[in-house]
């Protein structure tokens, strides 16, 4: 396969990747380098750092992530359907309705079980 027609895109990606990198390196070269032990401590509003940085997190984040996972994946079914909708009949609409109903049931489940509650 010859990569064709994607040349400008490739250029954009390359420039998009190179420019920030270059700027970061450039800034590092330009900037002064004093360094001191105090500067290298974790910043907690001037206090001595306490406890681990990667502790436990609210379970809610995890539940939302799971829900996101499900919905985001379902998106790859809904989007093609939407685009092809013009060529499909009523049956497709009904099928998608059923499909989304399953999603809604999942959402209702999470809702009812308190998965969406942030306490």
């Amino acid at each position, binding site marked *: *396969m*010859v*990569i064709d027609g994607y040349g400008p895109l490739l250029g954009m990606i390359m420039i998009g990747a190179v420019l920030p990198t270059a700027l970061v390196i450039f800034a590092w070269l330009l900037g002064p380098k004093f360094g001191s032990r105090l500067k290298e401590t974790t910043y907690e509003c001037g206090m001595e750092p306490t406890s681990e940085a990667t502790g436990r997190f609210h379970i809610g984040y*995890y539940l939302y992530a*799971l829900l996101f*996972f*499900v919905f*985001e*994946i*379902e998106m*790859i*079914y809904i989007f093609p359907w939407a685009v092809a909708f013009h060529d499909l009949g009523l049956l497709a609409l009904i099928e998608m309705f059923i499909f989304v109903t399953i999603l809604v049931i999942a959402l209702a489940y999470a809702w009812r079980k308190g998965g969406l509650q942030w306490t």
Partner: protein
Amino acid sequence: MLSITLNHFLYLASALFCLGIFGIIVSRNAIKVLLSIEVMLAGVTVAFVAISRYVTPDTIEGQIITVFILTVAAAEAAIGLAILLAVYRNYQTVDMSRFNLLKW
């Protein structure tokens, strides 16, 4: 110009697949094992898409199964993490060599 053939994709697919297997065998961290499974599935996906493009350009069966694999892989990962969470609650670790209540 740069010319990529089916074989290149298949090499990539196999490499990913083997990398996944390797990861499963060597890692003791359960999360790494889950990630390795995803890598295996990624290898499979690459193979399907490449074959679909090169061997059967007229049909999209390969792409369809890829979409399904992605979905299922996501579900599997979600369930896997949930189960791992339950395991972690009981064992306070994700080190697989500590999961020894059952005899294997």
